[in-house]
């Protein structure tokens, strides 16, 4: 376990030194500008606009980091051959992989937490108060973070057996497909053969269900989120990440490095 932490710590340090967290500056400007503009055009919907805009920005920025940095976590190390000296140490390949995942997960957590703080600051500037109901915004931020973990795990899996470009495309494609899993499950496919219907049914359960992690509407309108959904989403993310990372570890453990 300590070896996983050594790799994770270095991955976080790499993200900091490669200025991954500089996106926070962009987010801060976006929030400040939004607070000023929304404050002027307000028609009692300033809170809804601010929360929607803030959560969308947190999600989009997080996704960009998760996909691009996630794919590069392993592929960059293989391309640059930095991995050769690392794997010569008493370190299993799966430990390296999990360490890299954990390092980026911490980076994303810090990044998301900082952006959430920025969003609450902007909300306070607009409303001059933070209500108890705003806690649902925190739940939405937590769901975004869980979603990002899933995306990182998928990006790492794909980067273990294909080129970085294809890995980015596969991860992006799977993310988009995953947004519509709920629709796929209830889709009427009566004109298809029973085998095809079964196939789509299975696919709808195999694909990551990203739709469940979108509670932006509820957060913007101050509606509550059921505790069972929080528990379900947390367990789903943990289990799905565990399965995807296990598959990635199996592939990576047998991979010839160049």
């Amino acid at each position, binding site marked *: 376990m*300590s*070896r996983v932490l*050594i790799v994770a710590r*270095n991955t976080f*340090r*790499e993200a900091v*030194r*490669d200025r991954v967290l500089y996106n926070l500056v962009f987010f801060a400007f976006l929030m400040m500008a939004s607070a000023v503009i929304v404050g002027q055009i307000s028609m009692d919907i300033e809170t809804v606009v601010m929360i929607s805009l803030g959560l969308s920005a947190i999600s989009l920025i997080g996704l960009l980091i998760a996909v691009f940095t996630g794919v590069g976590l392993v592929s960059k190390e293989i391309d*640059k*051959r*930095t*991995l*050769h*000296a*690392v*794997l*010569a*140490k*008493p*370190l*299993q390949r799966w430990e390296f992989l999990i360490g890299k995942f954990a390092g980026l997960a911490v980076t994303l957590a810090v990044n998301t937490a900082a952006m959430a703080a920025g969003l609450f600051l902007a909300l306070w500037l607009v409303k001059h108060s933070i209500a108890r109901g705003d806690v649902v915004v925190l739940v939405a931020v937590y769901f975004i973070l869980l979603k990002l973990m899933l995306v990182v795990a998928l990006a790492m899996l794909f980067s273990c057996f294909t080129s970085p470009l294809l890995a980015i495309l596969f991860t992006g494609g799977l993310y988009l497909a995953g947004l519509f899993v709920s629709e796929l499950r209830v889709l009427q496919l009566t004109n298809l053969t029973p085998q095809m219907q079964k196939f789509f049914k299975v696919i709808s359960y195999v694909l990551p269900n990203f739709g469940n992690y979108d509670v932006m509407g509820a957060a913007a309108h101050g509606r509550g989120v059921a505790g069972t959904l929080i528990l379900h989403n947390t367990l789903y993310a943990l289990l799905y990440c565990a399965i995807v990372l296990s598959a990635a570890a199996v592939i990576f453990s*047998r991979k*010839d*490095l160049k």
Partner: protein
Amino acid sequence: MPAPAIETENLSKEYPHGFLHLKKKTSLEGLTMQVEDGEVFGLLGPNGAGKSTTIKLLMGIIFPTAGSARMLGKPASEVSMHRDIGYLPEQPYFYDYLTATEVLDYFARFHGYSAAERAERVQKMLKKVGLETAGKIQLRKYSKGMLQRVGLAQAILHDPKLVILDEPMSGLDPVGRREVRDVILELKNAGKTILFSTHILPDAEMLCDRVGVIAGGRLRGVGAPGTIVGVKATGMEILFELGESATLPERIRAQAARSGTGYRMSVTENELYPALEELRVAGARITSVTQIKPTLEDFFMELVGKDRAQAAAVEVGAQ
């Protein structure tokens, strides 16, 4: 008798290539060799011969298509054994956002040293490879030679029993090469086993107890640098100087060539004494008589030449 530090049996590696990966390219074919405990073993061969493939197979960076390898008595796939192994990759590249001190500290952490122990070892290694004043500089600002030194430092940081160095002299200036040679000799004196690959033959001749020559993915010979090419002299070289009034006999003049202020000529062993007698009579001053032995380089070139001739013959045959 202790187990060999490294032993491979029929170790082979094929790479798929072509659009559908249906073709196979053999990088290493049936390598069977042993490196004894405490010896310095040089893996020699031209570029693309299979030296780095062998080392990568030993270090678990790639996996064999056939055969097996053992190091320090355990299968090469056993990662825990890396505690006792130091490895310098070919053209090493490290995290360039770290300083040399940080990268060595990072590697030292995997060996479970305390913070104080790590700091002490890192400083000692930086000093050993001549980087004590550059320890706080990010590696992205390092030259190729400096990176090579960092690579050497991380390989021996944890005082391993077995050190594997892939082209350790690559990218180094003469001073750097000398320093690396000194480190290897120091490790040898400390009883470490060293396997290193190189295509720089004088380094191998100077440092190795034994060498293995690899060409075309196959091991062509193993032995002491002197014996692998045979100890039999192929001729004798005579160096001599000539006074102003002296004149050389016609036969000697035809064989001798000017060399600095004197002359140099090569003769067979049977011709040596008659030639010396003729030179004495002609008033020449003999400055040196040495045996001409085939060097490792000759052996090496002969193998490469044979391979190329064989490849050309196959090509002609195919046409």
